[in-house]
C-alpha cells in the first residue's frame, strides 16, 4: 500500500468513515430501534431471572449493566460490518484510497458513539428499573467513556476479522466476548465503586477502590486501539 497519506489525512479519513456510518444510522435507525430495545430487554430479563428483590438487583446492577452493554456491542459491531457486506461496499471502501488506520478509527468511532448513546439509556434503565442510586456520576461516566473506546476498538478488529465469512453471525460473539471480558470485570468494579453498591461476593477485591480498574480499562483501550491501527490493513486485505 502506498504511503502517500500524511498524518492529518488519517484523521480526515476516520472522520469521513465515521460520518458515513453515523449518517446511515441516522437514516436507518437500526441500532436505535433494534439494538437499544434489545439492551433494555436484557435488563428486564435479568430482573425476571433474579427475582424482584430490590437488594439483589441493586447488588447485581453494575454487572448486569455491563453484560447488557457487551451483548449490545456484539450487535452494534455486526450492524457496522453488515452495512458494507452487500454491493461490494467493502471493496469500494478499500479502493477509495483511504488509509486503513483511518478506516479503523472511523468505524470504531462510529461504533463508540452508538455504544455511548446506548450506555446512557441503559444506565438510566439501571437506575430506574433496579433502583440503584448514583454516588459518583463522574466515576460512572469516566468508566463508560474509557470502556467504550476499548469495546469499540476490539469489536471493530473482530468485526473486520469475521466480515466476509459465511459463519460470521455465530463466530463473532464467540471470538469477541472472551476478549472483552476484562472490560466486563473492570467496568463492573468501577461501577460498583461509583454506584456505592456492596461488592457482593467479590470478597476483598475492592480494597484499592475504583482506581486500579480504571487503569485496566485504560490499558485495554490503548492496547486495542493501537492493535487496530497497526493490523487493520491486513484485515482489509483478507476479505
Amino acid at each position: 500500500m502506498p504511503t502517500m497519506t500524511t498524518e492529518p489525512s488519517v484523521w480526515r479519513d476516520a472522520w469521513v468513515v465515521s460520518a458515513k456510518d453515523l449518517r446511515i444510522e441516522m437514516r436507518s435507525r437500526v441500532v436505535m430501534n433494534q439494538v437499544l430495545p434489545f439492551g433494555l430487554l436484557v435488563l428486564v430479563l435479568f430482573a425476571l431471572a433474579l427475582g424482584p428483590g430490590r437488594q439483589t438487583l441493586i447488588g447485581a446492577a453494575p454487572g448486569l449493566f455491563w453484560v447488557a452493554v457487551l451483548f449490545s456491542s456484539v450487535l452494534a459491531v455486526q450492524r457496522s460490518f453488515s452495512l458494507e457486506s452487500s454491493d461490494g461496499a467493502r471493496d469500494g471502501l478499500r479502493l477509495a484510497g483511504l488509509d486503513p488506520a483511518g478506516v479503523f478509527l472511523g468505524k470504531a468511532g462510529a461504533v463508540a458513539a452508538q455504544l455511548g448513546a446506548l450506555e446512557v439509556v441503559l444506565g438510566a434503565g439501571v437506575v430506574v428499573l433496579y433502583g440503584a442510586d448514583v454516588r459518583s456520576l463522574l466515576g460512572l461516566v469516566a468508566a463508560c467513556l474509557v470502556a467504550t473506546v476499548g469495546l469499540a476498538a476490539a469489536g471493530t478488529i473482530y468485526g473486520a476479522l469475521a466480515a466476509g465469512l459465511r459463519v460470521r453471525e455465530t463466530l463473532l460473539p464467540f471470538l469477541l466476548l472472551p476478549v472483552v471480558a476484562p472490560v466486563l470485570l473492570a467496568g463492573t468494579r468501577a461501577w460498583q465503586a461509583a454506584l456505592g453498591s456492596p461488592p457482593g461476593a467479590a470478597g476483598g477485591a475492592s480494597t484499592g477502590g475504583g482506581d486500579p480498574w480504571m487503569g485496566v480499562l485504560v490499558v485495554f483501550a490503548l492496547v486495542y486501539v493501537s492493535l487496530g491501527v497497526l493490523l487493520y490493513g491486513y484485515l482489509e486485505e483478507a476479505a
Partner: protein
Amino acid sequence: MSGMPDVTAGETQPAMGDRGLRPWSERTVWVVRILGIASLVGVAATVWLGLWVTPPDRVQGNLVRLVYVHPAVAWIALYVAFGTVGVASVLWLWPRTRSSFFDRLAASAMEIGTVFTGLTLVTGSIWGKPTWGVWWAWDARLTSTALLFVLQLGYLALRRVPSDPESRARRSAVAALVAALDVPIVHFSVLWWRTLHQKATVLTPTLSPKIHGIMAWTLLLGFVAFTLVFFWMLAVRMRSASIEDYLDDEGMDAALEERWAEGSSIAAESEEPAAAPVGTLVGAGMPATVKGGEL
C-alpha cells in the same frame, strides 16, 4: 524451509511458492526421532520419580505429586505454546519473512497449546477438589485460563472456516496476536486480584525454589520432559499439516485434470461419427480453453 523472497506479489497471487511437499531430510528425521525418544524417556522418568521416588508432602500428602504435572503443563500452555504462536504470527505478518511455514507453525502450536490448556484446567480441577473442596473456584487465575481456553477454541474455529489459504493465514495471524495479549493478563492477574491460587514456586522473582532436593529435581525434570513433548508433537503435527496442504493442492490438480479429460472425451464422443481428425482437434482444443478459464 525458505521464506518467499517476493512478497508484494502476495496481494494479487496467493503465496503458493513453497506449498509442494518436500521429504524430511535424513537429519531432520533423526532429530525428530531423538526428540521423540528423549521426551518419552523424560515423561517416564518424571512418572517414576513423581510416583515412587519422591516422598509425600507433610501437609498435602500424596496430592503434592500433582505438582510434577500441573505447573509443567501450564507452563507449556501459557508460555511455550502461546509464545510460539505469537512469534510465528508476527513472522507471517511481517512481509519479509512471510511463508506458509509460519502459518503451519502457528496453527500446529495453537492446536497443541489448546490441548495443554485443557489439561491445565483438568489437572488443576483434580487438585482443587481435595485441597479447596471444590472442583472449580472463581479464582482469578482459573478464570483467566478458562477464558484463554475459549480464545484458543475461537482461533481454531476461525481456522476451520472454509477460506483460501492466504486469507485464512492472514486472519489467523491477526486473531492470534489479539488473543496473545490475554496471556500477560493471565500472568499479572495473580497480582491484581487476591487469589486462592498458590504463588509461583520455581519462577519466583529471586529464583530461589521453595522446595528442595529430589522434589525440586523432579519438578524441573517435568518441565523439561513436557517441553520436549511439546516440540516433538509440534514437529510431527507440522509435518502432517504440510501433507494436508499438499493433498489439497493435489486434489485440486486431480479434479481439474479429471474435468479436462471429461471434456475432451465428451467432445471426442460427439464427434465420433464424423471424421476422426476433427474429433481429435476439438479434443485437444478443449483443455486449453478450460484451463484458460479456470486459472
